[in-house]
C-alpha cells in the first residue's frame, strides 16, 4: 500500500526558506540612522570588516509567515494529541503561563538590572526556590542549571567538591543499567568513572551488586525513583544506608518526579541532591527540544558548594543575588538561569497548590495503571507483556519481544503504525535492559476516553499484524513523509542547505 498525499503548491516537501524568495525582497525595514553618516570603512579597518554578506534569505513578511506556518502544520504536537513518551511527562501546558511570561515586566527585564529594580523577579525566584525545596524535602536550591542534564552535571560536580573539601579523592559513580544516557555522559564530563549497577528481578537496584560495588572510591550513586521502568524501588531506605555508609552521596534524577509530588519526597528517602526538570512536571512547554530548566535542591551538607548566584532574602525583606559563596563550584552558565521557565513553573505551582500537585501525581499514577490494564486485555499481554512487576507508578515498560517473534513486527513498526492512527507513539528501545522496549507515560492531563482509544489502537495494530505484518512494516502512510533513510543521513551527512 503506497498512497502519497498530494502536494499542495508551495508546500513541496523539504523546500527550505533559502530556496524561496527573490533578490531584493525584504521584511525588515531598517530605521534611519538619525546620526551623522559615517563610512563603515572609516570605523573598521579592512581586515576586520566583512566583505561577503551572509546568504540569508530574501523574503517578504507574507512569504516568511506562510513558510513557517506551513512548516508548523507538518508537526505533531501535544496541543493536538496524545503524546505518551516515557519519562518525558508530556502533560498539558497551561496557556496562562504564556500570557504571564510575556508581561514586559518579566520578558523585557535585563539580567543585570539593578537588584532594587528587579525585586519582582528575584522574589519570584526566591518563592520558586522555596516551593521546590518543599516538594523535594531538601532545603537549599539553585535555579541556575539550563536543563536536566546540566542539573545532573551540577550534582556530580557538587559531589566532587564535597569529597575534595573533606580531603577525599573518589573516582567512581554508580548508575543503574536502566539509567538515562545523560547520567553516564554527565559522569564522564565531570571527570569521574561510571560503574554500572545491575537491576534485580523486581526491576529495582540489585542490593547484592550494590553492596559488592559500594566502597570508598564511590563518590555517588545516581538514581531515579521511580526508575525508568516506572517502578518505585521499595529498598530505597536500605540503598541510602549502604551508600551513606561508605560516605558517598545519593543523587536523585528528577525526571520521574511526576509520580510522587505530595506523596513522598526524595529528601525523605535519603537523597542528598535532586534535580528537577521544569519542562516535565512543571509544564514548561517542550518547544520541540527546549528550552528546559534543571534546578537542583541539596541537603545542608552539600549547600556550601551550590553554584552561584543563589537568590537570598535579607532581614528587611528585600531580595538579592548572592555570589559570595567561597566554596561554590562556580557558574554553569551566564546570568541566573532560564527565568522565563521560572515564571511558568511558578504560575503552575500557584495554580495547583499543595493539593493540586498531589492530585496531579495521584492521577498520573492512576492513568498509567489504567492504561496498563487496558493494554493487557484482549490477549495483548502475550504480545506486549509488562517487563517488570504488576503495578506501576506514572509510567510502564512493555516488551515487544514476543510480538517480534510471533508476528514479525517490531516495536518500531508498531510505533510507526500508531502515527497513522493519529497518536504519537511511546518511547521505543529504552530502557536498553528490556527487549524491544515500549515505555509509556500517559500523564494526568489525559482523559479516560483518550486512554481507551489508545489501547484500542494498539490492539487493532496487533490484530492487523496477525493478518499481514507488512502493513506495520511499511507504516506510516498518512504522515507528511514516510519512513526516512537515516542510514544515508549518517553516512553522508548534509547538515545545511548548499547555496
Amino acid at each position, binding site marked *: 500500500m503506497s498512497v502519497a498525499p498530494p502536494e499542495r503548491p508551495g508546500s513541496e516537501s523539504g523546500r527550505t526558506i533559502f530556496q524561496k524568495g527573490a533578490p531584493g525582497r525584504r521584511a525588515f525595514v531598517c530605521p534611519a540612522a538619525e546620526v551623522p553618516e559615517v563610512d563603515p570603512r572609516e570605523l573598521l579597518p579592512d581586515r576586520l570588516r566583512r566583505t561577503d554578506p551572509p546568504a540569508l534569505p530574501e523574503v517578504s513578511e507574507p512569504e516568511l509567515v506562510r513558510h513557517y506556518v506551513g512548516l508548523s502544520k507538518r508537526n505533531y504536537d501535544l496541543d493536538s494529541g496524545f503524546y505518551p513518551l516515557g519519562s518525558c511527562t508530556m502533560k498539558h501546558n497551561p496557556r496562562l503561563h504564556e500570557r504571564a511570561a510575556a508581561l514586559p515586566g518579566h520578558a523585557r527585564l535585563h539580567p543585570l538590572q539593578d537588584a532594587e529594580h528587579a525585586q519582582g523577579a528575584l522574589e519570584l525566584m526566591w518563592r520558586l526556590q522555596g516551593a521546590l525545596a518543599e516538594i523535594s524535602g531538601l532545603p537549599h536550591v539553585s535555579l541556575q542549571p539550563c536543563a536536566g542534564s546540566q542539573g545532573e552535571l551540577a550534582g556530580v560536580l557538587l559531589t566532587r567538591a564535597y569529597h575534595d573539601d573533606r580531603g577525599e579523592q573518589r573516582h567512581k559513580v554508580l548508575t543503574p543499567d536502566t539509567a538515562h544516557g545523560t547520567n553516564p555522559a554527565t559522569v564522564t564530563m565531570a571527570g569521574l568513572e561510571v560503574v554500572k549497577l545491575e537491576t534485580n528481578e523486581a526491576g529495582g537496584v540489585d542490593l547484592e551488586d550494590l553492596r559488592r560495588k559500594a566502597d570508598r572510591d564511590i563518590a555517588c550513586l545516581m538514581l531515579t525513583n521511580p526508575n525508568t521502568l516506572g517502578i518505585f524501588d521499595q529498598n530505597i531506605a536500605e540503598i541510602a544506608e549502604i551508600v551513606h555508609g561508605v560516605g558517598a552521596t545519593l543523587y536523585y534524577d528528577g525526571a520521574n518526579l511526576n509520580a510522587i509530588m505530595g506523596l513522598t519526597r526524595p529528601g525523605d528517602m535519603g537523597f542528598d541532591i535532586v534535580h528537577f526538570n521544569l519542562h516535565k512536571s512543571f509544564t514548561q512547554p517542550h518547544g520541540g527540544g527546549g528550552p528546559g530548566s534543571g534546578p537542583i535542591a541539596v541537603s545542608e551538607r552539600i549547600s556550601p558548594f551550590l553554584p552561584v548566584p543563589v537568590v537570598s532574602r535579607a532581614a528587611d525583606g528585600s531580595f538579592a543575588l548572592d555570589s559570595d559563596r567561597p566554596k561554590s563550584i562556580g557558574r554553569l552558565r551566564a546570568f541566573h538561569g532560564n527565568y522565563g521557565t521560572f515564571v511558568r513553573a511558578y504560575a503552575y505551582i500557584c495554580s495547583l497548590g499543595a493539593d493540586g500537585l498531589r492530585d496531579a501525581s495521584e492521577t498520573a499514577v492512576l492513568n498509567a495503571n489504567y492504561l496498563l490494564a487496558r493494554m493487557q486485555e484482549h490477549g495483548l499481554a502475550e504480545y506486549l507483556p509488562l517487563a517488570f512487576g504488576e503495578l506501576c507508578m506514572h509510567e510502564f515498560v512493555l516488551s515487544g519481544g514476543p510480538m517480534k517473534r510471533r508476528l514479525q513486527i517490531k516495536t518500531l513498526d508498531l510505533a510507526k503504525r500508531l502515527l497513522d492512527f493519529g497518536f504519537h507513539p511511546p518511547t521505543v*528501545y529504552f530502557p536498553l535492559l528490556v527487549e524491544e522496549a515500549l515505555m509509556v507515560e500517559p500523564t494526568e492531563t489525559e482523559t479516560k476516553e483518550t486512554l481507551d482509544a489508545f489501547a484500542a489502537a494498539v490492539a487493532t495494530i496487533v490484530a492487523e499484524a496477525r493478518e499481514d505484518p507488512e502493513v506495520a512494516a511499511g507504516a506510516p502512510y498518512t504522515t507528511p513523509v514516510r519512513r526516512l533513510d*537515516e*542510514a544515508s543521513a*549518517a*553516512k553522508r551527512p548534509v547538515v545545511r542547505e548548499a547555496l
Partner: protein
Amino acid sequence: MAQDSYPEELLYHPEHDWARIDDEQGHATLGITWFAQDALGEVVFFDPPAIGTTLTKDSSYAEIESVKAVSDVIAPLSGEIVEVNGGLSENPELVNEDPYGEGWLVKVRMSDASERGQLLDAAAYRATLAG
C-alpha cells in the same frame, strides 16, 4: 548478507571478530562477523586507526557505528596495522554486505603468531552464539 555465515577457513574471537591469516610472513586480515553486523544494523561509519598503530589482543582498537548504535571492535590478535580498508569511508555498508570480503577492516603484522591458538574455529564460534 541475508544468511548468517561463518567461513570455515577463518579464526574467530568471542567478541564477534574474525581473523584470516594471509601468509607465512605473519600478516592477517581482521573484521567483524555476520552476527556483529546483523546486531549493529546498517553500518554508517568506521574510522580506522592510523597505519602503524599497535593492536593488543582482546582490547578495543576502533569503533564502528550504525544509525542507532556504537560498538567497540575487539582485536582478535596483537600486531601492528599495515593497511586499513579505505573503501569503507565511502561505502561503510560493505561491512554488512560482505563482512568477510570487501568489508574487511584492517590488516596487521602479527606480533605473536601463537595467539592464533587461543581463537575459535567456525564451529566453536557458532556454538557461542547458540548458548
